[in-house]
């Protein structure tokens, strides 16, 4: 469970910053808009727009930039691999050769474009999870999808499932650790052997874990019933979402940035 505390990737940090107080729906839609913009970006000044926005948002969420950039560490490997692949295997006139590896101008451009896009994607997504509690996030998603309830989409149920899953992740990590160690103490050998043997050797960890999970689910269902839960009908919220002017303005601002970027591209080239 200790490693969970170590992760700054995807973690929620409570605060009452400007970003925290935005409606979760704004932040989700805003993220989608921003990512659209990021993936349309190609010119240096495009990156300037989005990186500035990132820093501004980070400031508005009262997060240290250091904390935010540490969250990249988890996906750094992925970004580096993607860049390298793009660098060497993109189409185009080679400007440098070494053996069968060739680097073209297009390759270089593609490499750092992709790297920047991925980095910005991760950083903006982290700003979302950082400033929105899992509960608020799932509530927000539920609200966004609730019009679909009319066609039978189980928005509330999915949101509740997401909340409970998030709630139990640390618990279950702890249980897995305990069961794993218990079987190791009984001589389990999880490091050696071929594919089949290794998979089989995990059964003594998976079966007990499943039993625990089902028992927990059972207990939780009873506890929820005892607290008068009966699905999404008639449920209110302690922290209801109030759509404020600032929410509308934020979304308009993001859309404006995209439009601005497009116009700049067109004019400046």
């Amino acid at each position, binding site marked *: 469970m200790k490693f969970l505390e170590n992760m700054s990737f995807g973690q929620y940090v409570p605060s009452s910053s400007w970003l925290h107080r935005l409606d979760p729906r704004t932040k989700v839609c805003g993220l989608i808009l921003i990512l659209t913009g990021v993936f349309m970006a190609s010119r240096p000044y495009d990156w300037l727009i989005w990186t500035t926005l990132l820093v501004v948002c980070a400031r508005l969420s009262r997060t240290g930039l250091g904390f935010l950039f540490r969250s990249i560490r988890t996906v750094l490997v992925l970004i580096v691999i993607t860049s390298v692949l793009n660098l060497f295997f993109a189409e185009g006139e080679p400007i440098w050769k070494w053996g069968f590896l060739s680097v073209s101008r297009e390759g270089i451009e593609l490499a750092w474009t992709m790297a920047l896009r991925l980095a910005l994607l991760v950083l903006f997504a982290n700003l979302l999870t950082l400033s929105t509690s899992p509960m608020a996030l799932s509530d927000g998603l539920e609200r966004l999808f609730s019009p679909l309830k009319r066609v039978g989409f189980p928005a509330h149920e999915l949101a509740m499932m997401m909340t409970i899953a998030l709630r139990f992740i640390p618990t279950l990590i702890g249980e897995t650790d305990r069961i794993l*160690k218990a079987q190791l*103490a*009984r001589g389990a050998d999880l490091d050696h052997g071929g594919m089949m043997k290794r998979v089989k050797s995990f059964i003594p960890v998976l079966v007990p874990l499943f039993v625990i999970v089902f028992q927990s689910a059972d207990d939780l269902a009873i506890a929820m019933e005892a607290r008068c839960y009966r699905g999404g009908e008639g449920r209110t919220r302690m922290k209801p979402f109030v759509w404020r002017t600032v929410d509308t303005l934020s979304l308009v601002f993001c859309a404006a940035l995209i439009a601005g970027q497009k116009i700049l591209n067109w004019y400046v080239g």
Partner: protein
Amino acid sequence: MIDGLCHIYHENTALQAAALEGVSLSIEKGSWTSFIGHTGSGKSTLAQHLNAILRPTRGSVSIDGVEVPPDGVRTKVDLRAVRRRVGLVFQYPEQQLFEETVRDELAYAPRNWGMREDEIRARSLEALGAVGLDESYMERNPFSLSGGEKRRVAIASVLTTKPEYLVLDEPTAGIDGRGRALLLSLLDRIHRNGTTVVLITHDLEIAFSRSDKILVLERGRSVGFGTADEVARMLHASPVPGLVVPDVMSAALVMRDKGLRVPLTCDPEKLAAALLRERRRRS
């Protein structure tokens, strides 16, 4: 034999947290040692070092002369062999059951060690006997047993390899008076048969009434290691948060303060008898 044991989780990261620091102790063969301390004091972490499930960040752990290499060091030492000699029963051990029959459950550990099937059967029956269950349990489904029976089967599954040392992490957690008494008599029997017992427990009554030596942990450090009497007096003089001396022993300590010659015991009968002797002595 554990010397200057130091186990640090996440060393050199932003969230460094020392689970254990500078813990030293030696456990004699055939003895009963108890580890006590508040939740999070490092008792379970220490226990997991005794059979090399965890390896020290600093310091050394040696079991029967075999030294456990520190974490991160590639080693030729067969750590699994250590686990054969030092059995470790985790908290709520009934949760580790997974086989379809008790027979297979008991055979899991010996099979991992490559024992012959006929030997496995003999050892399994012995282990069942040691926990007070008879042969009729062999073909039953572990999941159909009662909570108490499940726990005993789980303990038996660690006994099949006849470990010389048995480490138990809170074996009496979550069970009622009757179950507790049963489990204790079981442990007493195992101990009498020569197994070295190491008990991690919150139940200070058990620790004080049975231990040759008690280790007191607080926030990862050892704040005391001695006989039950020594530790009881230490806790009375300088209380450790999270550790409450059992009622009867606490009363005995108060009486001692008043100058009465009474043993430091958790047994009401013994204390009462001692007080009656005191009264006769004084009159």
